[in-house]
């Protein structure tokens, strides 16, 4: 049963938007976070009397958007009330925001059971805008750390468990600091959930780190060598960056799955993430099908912005890949340099030992020591090369793939709309034919179908406009983040290079008098 409704006007902070319900699907909203602590806290189960801060930020609701094809998705409608946390106030209340007249705040905060029976679910578009304004004001106060990789279990069933620690003053979380243990497939499961909810409506969902069968097998088998420790460290850092990017996204931050991931001590195993599972193979097939479809969709781009942006991202992708390959070569050669320097240090020490001129012998031993320290330096620099520079590039290569995916979804959305228009046309033609042939019994059916497809066309147009709008915002946010990200990392990387050079100066300055002392 399709619920139809005329959407209220979009602009000016009025709430708007709704999703079409299909049979058996739930539509609901996720949680609302409150800002103020108030002694007269509303009853947990329903919060109509929720205190709203002076600036009337209003309830914040995240949208959980559904697609026709998707299954039941929803979040637990938990709500948090911060009772005695005055430190949480400044975060949101400092942000001026347009006045909100919440339409039916109560329905948003209702617990899950109630939400199912909602007939007119309301999702505030504006609240998304609010959240983004907040993001622009940089008041996100949440820090994620991934640490302490620990091997659990034995043999081929073993896995690494990572500690995910969250430090936050956001009130949507029940505590300000907490940690949980998660394994890699949990992260993949989180991404898969977020992707299925948000990608196809235009949100750029940060991709999860890649799987590595070889790497993991080595760890499982118990090889305690440096390559498996490196692999684990690489993965830990990647997982941390992944989570940090995800929580930076204002919409994703509101998602209950994310919150559950960060907070709850037990998480149901995500089995569909295994590469060789049925779901994994299905994913691969779908990807291939998508690629083929993309080639056949000929979209009439009415908006030059999209074409421009797509081209830009394509160019960026190419260049980043090139740069990444070169940086990988740099990392490799620096590691070689480190190894060769260590070998030379040893032979210099040996030479110093056999040298029978005392002062020269001493100087050679000093040289050996200097070279050994320099070898350490090179190693550390190679790490910096990799973890700062190389990984940043590979992260962005994958992020851009996600961006491209979002553009592709828009194309698919357009295609759907187009198809609906074509079908409508056909139905109208069929109706005309029936009118001429004068078959009254079929006329009614034809008219019904026409109405149905008219609605679908309208829906298609709305969806298309919605996704276009979302993408524009997302790309804007993405680009801002990208600039910030690159600048921060570049500066950090250059500082590491400076550090190395300064150490070199220190070592050679210490050596010089030794060389001069050779008599």
């Amino acid at each position, binding site marked *: 049963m399709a619920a139809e409704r005329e959407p209220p006007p979009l602009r000016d902070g009025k709430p708007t938007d709704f999703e079409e319900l299909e049979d058996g699907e739930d539509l609901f909203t996720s949680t609302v976070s409150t800002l103020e602590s108030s002694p007269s806290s509303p009853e947990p189960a329903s919060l109509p009397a929720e205190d709203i801060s002076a600036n009337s930020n209003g309830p914040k609701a995240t949208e959980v958007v559904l697609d026709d094809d998707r299954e039941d998705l929803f979040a637990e409608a938990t709500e948090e009330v911060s009772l005695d946390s005055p430190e949480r106030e400044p975060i949101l209340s400092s942000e001026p925001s347009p006045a909100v007249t919440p339409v039916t705040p109560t329905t948003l905060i209702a617990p899950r059971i109630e939400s199912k029976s909602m007939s007119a679910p309301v999702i505030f578009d504006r609240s998304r805008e609010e959240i983004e304004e907040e993001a622009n004001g940089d008041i996100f106060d949440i820090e994620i750390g991934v640490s302490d990789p620990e091997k659990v279990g034995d043999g081929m069933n073993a896995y690494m468990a990572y500690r995910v620690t969250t430090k936050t003053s956001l009130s949507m979380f029940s505590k300000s600091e907490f940690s949980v243990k998660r394994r890699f497939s949990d992260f993949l499961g989180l991404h898969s959930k977020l992707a299925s909810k948000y990608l196809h409506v235009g949100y750029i969902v940060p991709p999860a780190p890649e799987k590595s069968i070889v790497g993991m097998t080595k760890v499982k088998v118990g090889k305690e060598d440096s390559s498996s420790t490196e692999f684990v460290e690489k993965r830990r850092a990647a997982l941390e960056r992944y989570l940090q990017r995800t929580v930076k996204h204002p919409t994703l931050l509101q998602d209950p799955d994310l919150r559950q991931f960060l907070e709850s001590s037990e998480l149901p195993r995500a089995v569909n993430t295994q590469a060789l599972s049925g779901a994994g193979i299905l994913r691969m097939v779908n990807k291939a099908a998508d690629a083929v479809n993309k080639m056949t969709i000929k979209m009439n781009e009415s908006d030059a912005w999209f074409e421009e942006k797509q081209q830009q991202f394509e160019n960026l992708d190419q260049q980043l890949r090139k740069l990444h390959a070169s940086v990988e070569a*740099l990392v490799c050669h620096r590691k070689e340099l480190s190894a060769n320097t260590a070998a030379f240090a040893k032979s210099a020490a040996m030479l110093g030992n056999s040298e029978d001129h005392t002062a020269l012998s001493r*100087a050679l031993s000093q040289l050996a020591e200097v070279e050994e320290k320099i070898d350490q330096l090179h190693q550390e620099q190679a790490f910096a090369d990799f973890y700062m520079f190389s990984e940043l590039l590979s992260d962005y290569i994958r992020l851009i793939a996600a961006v491209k995916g979002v553009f592709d979804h828009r194309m698919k959305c357009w295609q759907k709309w187009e198809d609906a228009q074509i079908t409508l046309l056909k139905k109208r033609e069929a109706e005309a034919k029936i009118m001429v042939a004068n078959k009254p019994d079929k006329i009614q059916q034809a008219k019904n179908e026409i109405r149905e497809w008219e609605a679908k066309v309208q829906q298609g147009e709305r969806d298309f406009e919605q996704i276009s709008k979302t993408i524009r915002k997302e790309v804007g946010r993405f680009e801002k983040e990208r*600039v910030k990200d690159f*600048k921060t990392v570049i500066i950090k990387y250059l500082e590491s290079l400076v550090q190395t050079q300064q150490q*070199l100066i220190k070592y*050679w300055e210490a050596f*010089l008098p030794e060389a001069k002392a050779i008599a």
Partner: protein
Amino acid sequence: MEVHPEAGKEGKPSCALVELQGDSSLQVEISDAVSERDKVKFTVQTKSCLPHFAQTEFSVVRQHEEFIWLHDAYVENEEYAGLIIPPAPPRPDFEASREKLQKLGEGDSSVTREEFAKMKQELEAEYLAIFKKTVAMHEVFLQRLAAHPTLRRDHNFFVFLEYGQDLSVRGKNRKELLGGFLRNIVKSADEALITGMSGLKEVDDFFEHERTFLLEYHTRIRDACLRADRVMRSHKCLADDYIPISAALSSLGTQEVNQLRTSFLKLAELFERLRKLEGRVASDEDLKLSDMLRYYMRDSQAAKDLLYRRLRALADYENANKALDKARTRNREVRPAESHQQLCCQRFERLSDSAKQELMDFKSRRVSSFRKNLIELAELELKHAKASTLILRNTLVALKGEP
């Protein structure tokens, strides 16, 4: 390709590898060198006021084989058995460099024009560096000969310096090369045999010490030289890596429409400058460390050869003693045995005396050379590190200053 090393080195012949106390009575230098298809022609210029020479200043053109001929002539001369013969210069080898240039020429379409130009520049610089090194090696060989009071008076040396025509010294053919190779094997076997001989006691502590020392030293310095070469090559690799990085950053910068544009372009410039500095670090390590180690590896081999010759003379002396004893007991041919023994004794003592002096010279030469090169190495490393720090800091300031 022509290379003209700095002419006009007045006064003392100077060389980074060997500090020579030259005097002005005989100055030798390689004033010019030309690299042709597969050989190098060196112009050897001599300035001398020695009466032997027809003119006070003259030049000849020599090729590598003629240097080798000269070296071998010294080695085979019994008169110089008690001296360390300066090691022969290595054969000029541009093979690797030429191959790389050729590969670059064959083209790799993924490389931009700027990258190509830079890589070509790098390879040409490498070629030039190898060329300069081979000139230096040949020059130092001659200069050491000219500085040595005994070796400088050799007739073959005069011929080499003065004779205007080609010396008609062809390169060793296969038989000769094989012969040389076998001779080396025989020599080491002989040496081993001698030391194993009972009754052959090293009477002199000095030489006993020198022997043990040189054997170990030579092996270790060879090791150190090989590894220093690898370090130098790694540095070079690193410097070359900056070329595509700089190019990619440049492209990124020109494509960007936001604030990253200037950041990327500045970064591209930074890496280009870092590349040049890294390249200089590599070449300084090459000159001050690798080359020095290599030279003293060869020189210590020459010293080992001297010890071998002396040991051989000692063995001959011992044998002559035994022969004399036998002759005396049999009372036959005592006189020839006596004179032979006398000769051997004299030869041995002559060799020992000059070897002692030579080995002490070797040590002081080595120590002063190491001192000079290590100091220069440290100073250059400091200079480059400071320059790198400066450009890095400047870039950081520029990047942080942007909105």
